[in-house]
């Protein structure tokens, strides 16, 4: 197990490095420079050149990359070209917003999806078909549209939940939950549908496997067969789907954050990209990559714990 963890850790570090390198090279391939961004449209070419030199933009690429990596090791993401703000502090305040929505939506998708999927597989019949059809419909609904619909029904019409904004957990846990409820629900509907379909298919397959028949033959209680033995085996693909789900939710937060006016990483990346704020943009990429890699690592470990074959691979 230790060797497995070491391999995954090494892979995680390499993944982060590659992501940083790619974003670094993309920034350098753009048709503008940090000096031009910092000084604005009215700056002369000479002023821009001088600013670029001051910022180290003219140094060899390998040197700039090395400097940036050294900066990252010190957990320093630099300052914004636009307004000089500390990027690390800015992203630290935004990370909980995106993370709380992505984590809650993933967890809720997992719980609801597994419950529905297992029910569909175990009960079958009309209920199973209804769950299958319902999840198919839910899968085809765009998240943005679901969000708009939820806002209209639960906020504008019923007045139950706030339509926009974010309240930090530390300020008021109750209002925090209110503020993330609609975005989480909007993301959960599609997410739970994917998990339900995956868990239903996986559960059906496992319930027909030889070792399950053997357990039945030995007189193992049916509930234990279903919810301990079969569910454990069926959980491996579900965990993989949840991992992908989290990555998709975390990386694709721009639309939902705009719809609900949430001050998260998606909003920061949009602002950084549109203003050419290179350090802020690379900072978002770094933070997002680290989070995704860490979650992947966690899921790998969970999968390994569930399935000994994975550890041996």
């Amino acid at each position, binding site marked *: 197990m230790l060797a497995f963890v070491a391999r995954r850790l090494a892979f995680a570090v390499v993944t982060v490095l590659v992501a940083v390198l790619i974003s670094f090279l993309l920034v350098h391939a*753009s*048709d*503008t420079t940090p000096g*031009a*961004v910092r000084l*604005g*449209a*009215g700056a002369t070419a000479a002023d821009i050149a001088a600013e670029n030199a001051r910022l180290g933009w003219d140094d060899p690429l390998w040197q700039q990359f090395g400097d940036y990596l050294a900066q990252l090791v010190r957990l320093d993401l630099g300052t*914004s070209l*636009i*307004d*000089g*703000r500390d990027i690390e502090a*800015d992203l630290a*305040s*935004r990370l909980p917003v995106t993370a709380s929505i992505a984590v809650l939506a993933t967890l*809720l998708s997992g*719980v*609801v999806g597994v*419950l*529905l999927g*297992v*029910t569909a597989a*175990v*009960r079958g019949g009309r*209920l199973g078909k209804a769950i299958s059809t319902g999840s198919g419909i839910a899968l085809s609904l765009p998240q943005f549209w679901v969000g*708009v619909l939820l*806002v209209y029904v639960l*906020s*504008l019409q019923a*007045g*139950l*939940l*706030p*339509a*926009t*904004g974010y309240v930090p957990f530390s300020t*008021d*846990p*109750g*209002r925090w*939950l*209110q503020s993330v*409820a609609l975005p*989480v*629900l909007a993301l959960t509907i599609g997410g739970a549908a994917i998990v339900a379909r995956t868990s239903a298919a996986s559960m059906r397959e496992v319930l027909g496997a030889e070792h399950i028949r053997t357990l039945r033959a030995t007189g193992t209680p049916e509930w234990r067969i*279903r*919810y301990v033995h079969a569910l454990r085996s069926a959980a491996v693909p579900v965990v993989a789907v949840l991992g992908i789900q989290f990555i998709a939710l975390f990386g694709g937060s721009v639309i939902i954050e*705009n*719809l*609900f*006016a949430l*001050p998260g990483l998606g*909003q*920061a990346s949009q*602002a950084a*990209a*549109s*203003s*050419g704020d290179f350090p802020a943009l690379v900072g978002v990429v770094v933070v997002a990559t680290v989070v995704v890699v860490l979650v992947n690592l966690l899921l790998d470990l969970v999968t390994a714990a569930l399935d000994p074959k994975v550890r041996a691979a």
Partner: protein
Amino acid sequence: MNRSRTTTGVAFAAVAAFGLTACGGGSGGGSSSQSAEGTLTVAFDADAAPTGYDPLLYSQGQFTFFSSMYDALWETDTDGVSQPSLATGYTNSADNLQTTITLRDDVTFTDGSSLDADLVKANLERRTDADLTAYGAFAAGGASEITDVAVTDPQTVVITWAAPQATPENTLVDTQGTIVGPDGVADPDTLETTPDGSGAYTLDADASTRASSYTVTKNADNWDADSWSYDTIVFTVITDAQALANAVVSGQADVATILDPSTIDLVESRQKTVSVGGTIVGFPVTDKTGAINPAFGNVEVRQALIYATDRQALVDDLHPGARATSQLFPEGTAGFDAAVDTEYAYDPDKARQLLADAGYPDGIEVNLTVLGQPDEDAVAIQAQWAEVGITLTFVTATSTDQAFAAVSTDPILFGPFGIGANPAGFVAGVVVGGFMNLQQAQDPDISAALGASLGTTGDTQAQALTQLNTLLTERGWYVPVYEDFTYAGYNADSVGEPSFAGTNNYLVLSAIQPA
């Protein structure tokens, strides 16, 4: 089998529990305002401080935000009248070339220093900084060029103008008249992260997230603290038009501005709105010398754009409620002349003739930079112009930096411009002395009319304003399309009706009161 039923039940219970828990906390979900404890929440459709807290980097429209942390020499009230703020009054010389301003003596800045004449002088000396949008008219060559600022005593400053300024209170007002504290003036880079003003509120940096929300808290010791109603003001940035409307409808914002016209019905169905005209949508001609596109050096070509634009059709099809216009000055302002709309109405034959007279019988090609997709107005006008031989090509900017740079790379721009209650000031600071004229093109007639508009009063000024307005269309310095209305939504349960600064399209923040 019972277990399975239980599983299904748990699944639905989980969803229900989440919803109920979410609904149960706090004080009643989204239907209640957050302003119950002395907090006013104002939602903006764009970031009010995208490049930091130097108010002079911005135009008048941002004064709603900056007025919480900064004071100006004069500030526009809800009737559109300039009222003394940091200034207590002024006298003009007989020729209107010198203005002597007296200052308050009880004003303190966030850096601990006091307002005096030296500080006002230091502020106005920054007019040489080309990045300061607010000072475009004060810089050399500007229509309200300041040639000298002298300190005669600690509370008196004398400003010398290059051309007569009969109503300096309309020039040194709101953003243009904002005074930054000594630390900010000495090192403007510090303003990127730290405001330095004398306003009734100070920024709570810990409770603010750049481009998302800004929280300011009241300084009870401020000289003007009693004029403000709220202990805390939260400014939120909601760039999605629908989300902005949702915020005021469901109570997360007490006031939301600027509402997109498509959301007005929604807001008015549950809350209330206020509106003001004064926004002229159109094409500023940035290349009046022909340096970018030689065709634009001909006044006939620029006039052809005006005659080729079917404004009324565009308003009828896309903007019911707006007003088609061929002039820069909004209806109701001094200088507005209905005859200009008639004289420069849609006439495609005349547009073709003008192009031919200018030597372009086969038409011209025009580039227009857009950020993302061109809006529906630009697309409609593209088709109208094509009928007379003007080929409008959209160039997609990949960054806001590139979009802003279009003032130097394209012959025209397109967008809504808040002209407001003082069109001459807008012409001085933006059309002639600002980003719409980076080429510093000169037209003696326009300069003379602008000078008279700023340097005279009464009937003489009224005539000069009318002439200035007419000339801007006649010389093709601006291609107006329609006058739009600016809407703000408000939660009538929590705040009284907010007011715009006269016909300016920004709200008077200090005038917002609890319901």
